């Protein structure tokens, strides 16, 4: 349950942040999409994902905690997607440079992370 409580407080704080954000953005975003505002939807996605995360991760046995660590680390390199958008779009030189640097960093994180995780996990194949 401690984990859950963690999750909840995590979410709680998020909501707090959201509350103010929402107030500010009610004007523009809200209008744009008729139904529930875009921001709220993103927030909902976030909260749900956190739940999924907690539910799944808590089921992972200690044996696999190190792989989990490096594996999730690789996933966190998902910023690569953002980096690509930043580097690829026509955003002027500065943005492009920053973007390209980001692409290289993120790729290292992603590729390296997955490979090393795979290396670790490959050892866990059952023996005999």
């Amino acid at each position, binding site marked *: 349950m401690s984990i859950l409580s963690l999750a909840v407080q995590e979410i709680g704080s998020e909501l707090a942040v959201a509350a103010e954000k929402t107030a500010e953005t009610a004007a523009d975003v809200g209008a744009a999409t008729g139904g529930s505002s875009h921001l709220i939807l*993103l927030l909902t996605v976030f909260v749900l994902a956190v739940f999924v995360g907690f539910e799944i*991760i808590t089921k992972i046995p200690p044996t696999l905690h190190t792989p989990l660590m490096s594996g999730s*680390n*690789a996933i966190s390199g*998902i910023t690569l997607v953002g980096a690509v958008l930043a580097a690829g779009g026509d955003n002027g030189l500065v943005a492009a440079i920053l973007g390209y640097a980001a692409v290289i960093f993120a790729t290292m994180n992603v590729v390296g992370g997955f490979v090393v995780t795979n290396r*670790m*996990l490959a050892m866990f194949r059952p023996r005999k």
Partner: protein
Amino acid sequence: MSADLIDLCYLVAAVLFMVGLKGLTRPRTAVRGNLFGALAMLIAVVATLLHQDILSVTGLLIAIAVGSIVGVVLAVKIEMTAMPQLVALFNGLGGGASVLVAGAYLAGREFSERLSSGVCFADVLTATAASGLIGAVTLSGSLIAFAKLQELKAVRDISFPGQKLVNLLLAAGCAGLGTLVVMQPEHAELWYWGMSLLAMVLGILLVISIGGADMPVVIALLNSYSGLAASATGFVLNNNLLIIAGSLVGASGLILTRIMCDAMNRSLWAVLFGTMQSGGSSASDDEVYAHVKSTSAEDVAMMLEVAQRVLIVPGYGMAVAQAQHAVRDLTNSLLKHDIDVQFGIHPVAGRMPGHMNVLLAEADIDYERLQEMDDANSMMDQVDVAIVLGANDVVNPLARTDPGSPIAGMPIIDVDKARTVVVVKRSLSPGFAGIANPLFAADNALMLFGDGKQAIAEITKAFNDG
């Protein structure tokens, strides 16, 4: 590729990430799970490359190629024992990427347009500031953690009076600049980079004063940060996939942190800010170690010959000595004489969670033999010989007996309850917690001094000869 199709690919990727993580819940499915994750990432990147806004794909491909090569090389070359460092390094890169992406957004076209259009978009700016802040702390913090785990001489444990205050001021500064980013979009870039700079200093100061053995906790925490940073970036670019993947990582990091802290029976706060209170037990080492009995590999071999069940409790020392293969050989010899061999794995044995499991798996030891702490303790009374290999704190009875000691209350593996205990280490010097270990002087305990790898090898040799 239409924006919606791309979003659909992102959704697929998100699902794959979750399914992949689910795969990690069982050793048998773990490898596949990891591949799912990689596949998801591939889909996401390819879909993004096909986005209409992307001008030159080639340039990007080159950059990706460069990153991939470096990443693969690092990942393949690295020693299994150096895993923690590597994770820290990669983690830092991830955080750095977040900082750069958010920065690029502020330098980019969409932002300037929105700015000139004049509609307020405080939410995006808040997210930008957040991803910059978290990202920067992650970056510098992880690099320091890396350096410490690498035991680079450059960084010693630095801590000066009023450090907490300085950190507090830095944090406040970051918060202030962050707010400015939101309040004065026209100067956003300026404030943003200022904030990121402060945040990096903060990251350094936060981590530099933390002891090397606490690094895993720090890494797990920073890992979770890098996830949150990614989520924040997702809010900036309003991109589902970043949000989902990021929060998955955030969750996993938090959980690992919590698990480690619980296993060490220290609060996260104590790990981050409290330096460990030094050993409360008044007894000097000489007193404690008055009646230490040391033994030889031959004697141990003889004990093993008459044993029915042997429990091996590895610790950080096994990692240092790279003794896992020697252990494998010993195990096989014992099994050949139908002596049952089990391994007692303490959750925080070694220097990262599951550290021992990985090393032993690397040495082809069937993971069915690896017992978690509680199982190991419950079988302790049928253990004839317990071999403690380079473990110290995780078998230190003081955790049970001396409420004053820094590890008081930390659950341990009760090897002292086995018939005989053989402790393999190089000296009587303490472990990470820096406290004496009465186990070494227990009546049923014998010390076998020497490097872990060598010592085990000698035992095996003596056992096979005898």
